[in-house]
């Protein structure tokens, strides 16, 4: 589903009922994706958590391999989700992305669930993620502000963050709470950007791809909020 095919049907210019239906479907799919991810994470942590965590944090370049694999699979899934040809392919893309994200989240969740002596860590991170996401979403919907001007800045900062993560893994130093805090702010920026695009720019009919965009931002936010909560717990 390329933009060109839908440029006259961007959400902001679509009929009121079409636009409302697009937004409803986007958030319905986002909710479904989050629930599916939570269920998959639970299943993976309880059944294969030790194996996946052992591999991911087993030293060497294992974590880099997992991250690289996630980015590659994520890329393919995103392309499927945006394909206009078949609805099945779009859903397959969303499904594969959710699965890949669940595998990536498993090591951190396993550590939080079994290796930290605090059962409140994951629920706290979940509630904080929902609160931040809800607050940012509400602010965009209430103010109707168009945050699409953030695109380039997000791309540059995202590139910077990727470089930092890569160099830290290759050169063997750990990124601390300040980096997590920066990533929470960055994820917040992505949420503002994608939400305002849902409201103003994304073409109606592209709800699967739009929900995938939002889901990726929510997962990023959760990941770094969880890291922050864990680091505060350790302190």
């Amino acid at each position: 589903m390329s933009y060109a095919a839908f440029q006259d049907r961007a959400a902001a210019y679509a009929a009121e009922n079409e636009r409302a239906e697009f937004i409803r479907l986007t958030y319905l799919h986002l909710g479904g994706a989050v629930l599916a991810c939570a269920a998959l994470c639970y299943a993976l942590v309880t059944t294969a958590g030790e194996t996946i965590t052992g591999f991911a944090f087993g030293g060497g370049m294992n974590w880099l391999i997992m991250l690289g694999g996630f980015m590659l699979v994520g890329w393919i899934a995103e392309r499927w989700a945006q394909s206009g040809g078949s609805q099945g392919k779009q859903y397959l893309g969303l499904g594969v992305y959710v699965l890949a994200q669940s595998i990536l989240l498993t090591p951190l969740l396993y550590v939080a669930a079994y290796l930290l002596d605090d059962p409140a860590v994951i629920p706290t991170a979940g509630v904080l993620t929902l609160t931040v996401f809800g607050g940012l979403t509400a602010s965009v919907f209430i103010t109707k502000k168009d945050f699409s001007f953030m695109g380039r800045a997000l791309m540059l900062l995202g590139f910077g963050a990727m470089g930092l993560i890569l160099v830290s893994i290759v050169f063997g130093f750990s990124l601390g709470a300040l980096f997590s805090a920066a990533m929470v702010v960055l994820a917040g920026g992505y949420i503002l950007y994608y939400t305002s695009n849902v409201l103003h720019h994304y073409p109606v009919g592209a709800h699967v791809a739009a929900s995938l965009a939002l889901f990726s931002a929510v997962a990023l936010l959760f990941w770094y909020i969880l890291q922050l909560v864990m680091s505060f717990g350790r302190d």
Partner: protein
Amino acid sequence: MQPVDPFGLDPPEGSRPPPSRGDKGFLLVFVLIVGGLFAVEIFREVTPARMAVLFFFAFYGLLTVLHEAGHALAAAAVGWRVSRVQLGFGPTLGRPTIGGVDVEIRAFPIVGLVQVAPDRIEGARWKNALIYAAGPGIELLLAAAVATAVGWSTITSPSESWAVVVAQSLCLAALLGAGFNLLPLTLPSGQVTDGMGILRSPFTPRAVFEAMMIGPEIEVAMKDIEADPRGALAGFEALHARHPQVLLIHLGIARALEALGRREEALLRLRQAVQETDPDERPEAEALYIAFRESVSKPAR
């Protein structure tokens, strides 16, 4: 982490309202917070490993220049014309002419673009593949040369030496740049990575190279359509006689006919051209036809 608009849904550049002063202020605060936290995290301790982040980004920018130079030099070596080089994205900082080529220097040198055109059709496929390969190739060669000079075991081992970390950062930036570019991907914008370009080159239809070859002539005729549609039509018809398979010429003819008020004829000619297109180019041709049909069916603003 995801690049912005990995989903290919964003509206094209220029279709959004320009940011207001308030937007710019918000953006500045946002960038300062995220960038500031990144900087504090990096400088928490000044060690060679942490400073590798800075070396890595500095080398990545320089290697982008080297990468594009690799494409341009390879093009010149096989006798192709280099019409334009773009280094980076964002605001333009300068437009020098280097070796007769217009070079556009942008603020953020993490991507680039080299526009080339063949001198003749013979051998165009392998020459095209070679030009694509030269960008990542020059980065890999540099990484191999640095690794050989420093020592392969040294370059792959953790080190506290500043000199070794600088060399390792250079190799990492070169490997990442070359590695990403060699992945065979088609980007949401429709552009392809070097890897995809190399793979596609042997199968690229002849008409595509013809279009590249006469690109400047097509551009001139396209610009003439509004001022002199009759002259532009004659120009396109002359080009068509020499290159009957080039779709862009058919689009030019259709646009010129439309400008002359012959809308039905324009649609019919473009439709016929699309049906005669090489099967490999058909989806792109169909999209072009649909876009043209929609543009002529819209009321003038």
